[in-house]
């Protein structure tokens, strides 16, 4: 493994044996399959995919919490399965919506406790806790019991927990899940400040917020059903769609209009439908803009009213649709475990 690599996986796989009744044959769930990734030191790397895609499983393997069933993975130069004790001092992880720590302890006490598990000298830990809490805007609540914090403030405490131990490689699993817009912005800014302070620090972020990945990540891997479908800089991934014209159309109730009907139209390369309160939102990828006329004709036949129509630049969501054939929301509602 190159010394410049923070993370490297080779043909990494993980199969879960699902528990059921004793009489039933045990079913298997392929959570990861042939995952090959490299993350450079100093990189902010994003893992994008719907719920159940395998992102959290991959993080668990990389953080030594789960052994792979095939292939191997190295983090900070050490094999996660063979040498977990070499990996653990150099990593940390924060998950979105986690409820770690003890509600009877204050924010500062909880953070101090976790810092001790990593051997941070007590005095230095206390100083660092105060400074980090100040950075995330939580210093005035440091003597509040963590059970009295709102979800957003609690997540800020969790974020500080992850950064407090100064990991070489930090794993953030959906860190902004459930946060309001202001708190999300705070967390993202904090992440970038932390990375800027030391060029050797590496951060692996999983998210299903495409805009978040686009804004933050140097490179992203798009993962679905346990497989990495693409891995590159966001701009490069989006460039692959530049040849198509992308339209977003809001329509009144669909009146039987289906995704297949849209795809069947000439020069329509991709189509996705997501239901909204007022009707539905269609995302279309067209070879030529002129194909839009045929789409409008189809709407007329189906008595579907157009409420809004926008031509837009491609996003990572479009890249996902291009790779998978469905939007992330559709993929999630497709019954992934």
């Amino acid at each position, binding site marked *: 493994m190159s010394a410049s690599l923070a993370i490297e996986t080779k043909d990494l796989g993980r199969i879960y044996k699902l528990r059921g009744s004793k009489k039933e044959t045990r079913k298997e769930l392929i959570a990861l399959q042939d995952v090959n990734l490299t993350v450079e030191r100093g990189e902010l790397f994003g893992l994008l995919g719907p719920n159940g895609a395998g992102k959290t499983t991959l993080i668990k393997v990389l953080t030594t919490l789960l052994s792979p069933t095939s292939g191997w993975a190295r983090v900070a130069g050490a094999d996660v399965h063979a040498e977990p004790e070499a990996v653990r001092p150099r990593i940390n992880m924060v998950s979105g919506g986690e409820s770690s720590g003890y509600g009877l302890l204050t924010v500062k*006490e909880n953070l101090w406790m976790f810092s001790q598990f990593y051997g941070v000298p007590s005095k230095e830990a206390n100083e660092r806790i105060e400074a980090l809490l100040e950075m995330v805007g939580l210093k005035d609540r440091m003597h509040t019991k963590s059970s009295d914090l709102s979800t957003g403030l609690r997540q800020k405490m969790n974020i500080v927990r992850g950064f407090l131990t100064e990991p070489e490689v930090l794993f953030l699993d959906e860190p902004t899940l459930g946060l309001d817009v202001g708190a999300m912005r705070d967390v993202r800014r904090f992440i970038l400040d932390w990375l800027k302070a030391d060029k050797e620090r590496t951060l692996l972020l999983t998210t299903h917020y495409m805009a978040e990945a686009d804004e933050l990540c140097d490179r992203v891997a798009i993962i679905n059903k346990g497989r990495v479908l693409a891995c590159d800089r966001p701009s490069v991934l989006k460039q692959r769609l530049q040849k198509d014209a992308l339209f977003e159309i809001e329509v009144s109730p669909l009146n039987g209009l289906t995704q297949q009907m849209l795809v069947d139209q000439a020069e329509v390369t991709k189509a996705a439908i997501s239901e909204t309160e007022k009707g539905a939102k269609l995302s279309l990828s067209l070879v030529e803009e002129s194909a839009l006329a045929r789409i409008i004709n189809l709407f007329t036949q189906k008595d579907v009213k157009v409420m809004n129509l926008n031509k837009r630049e491609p996003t990572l969501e479009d890249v996902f649709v291009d790779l998978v054939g469905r939007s992330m929301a559709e993929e999630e509602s497709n019954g992934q475990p």
Partner: protein
Amino acid sequence: MDSPNPRSLAALRPYTHKNTGWRLFVSTILARAYPRIIGQQREVSWLVFDLIMPMLAVIAYVFVYRALNAPEEYIGFVVMGGAMTAFWMNILWSMSSQLYWEKEQGNLALYIMAPNSMMAILLGMALGGMLATALRALVVTLLGIFLFGVTYAVSSYVQLFLVFMLAMVALYGMGMMMASAFLLFGREAWHMANLAQEPIFLASGFYFPIKSLPFWVAAGASIIPLTLGMDAMRQLVFATGFQFGFLTVQTEIIILAVLSVVFVVTAKVMLGYIEKIAVREGRITESRR
């Protein structure tokens, strides 16, 4: 969030030093003990569960013994049993189930992922539980003196300290072992603990000397460290000495020492096994599979 000021930026610099080895082991024990020693005192419900409830049982037994004209030492035996009840309840319902709750809360994964030893986490839980419970036991003992005029005549402070410490090590060693078992067997272990609570109150002689029980019942109950611990302490702190004792204090010290080693070593082995299957099967750190 404001722009980072120079002090905040200093907070982003790497540490120059981190504790490893035995220093990390000790800091982990102390840190994990902290929520139990400090945090638990903030939950005033302990006054009801750890003080008032045991005292009600003590009061009931005191009235029964006085009505039967039992020797006055029995009042002291009951008060000591009431004080030690706090330790047994702590083991059965707090220590044993702790890893299970740590898993449900998401702490267990963080403990396993950290560079500390899981044994240090368990020892911290044990130390914290022991110290927090010692406060409750002390209050019950003082209430016994105040309410019932119990008098103590300690024959050997050294032996008393030794017996108490060995009983605590063996008891919390057993608690550490049970914590791993609870995690492995989940709710089934819960039912077992429920089932064990009352019979153990009886067989371990919390409210009477176990000498009154048939020999083999008392011998069987000796697997619970509090059985011999209480028997030896009763011999050492009351004037009756060996008169109501099951075995001699020296024999009980040896057995308690053996139990301490067996339980702590078994806890370590079970914990290693738990960690192994946690990583292999992924079912210890998450409940959905």
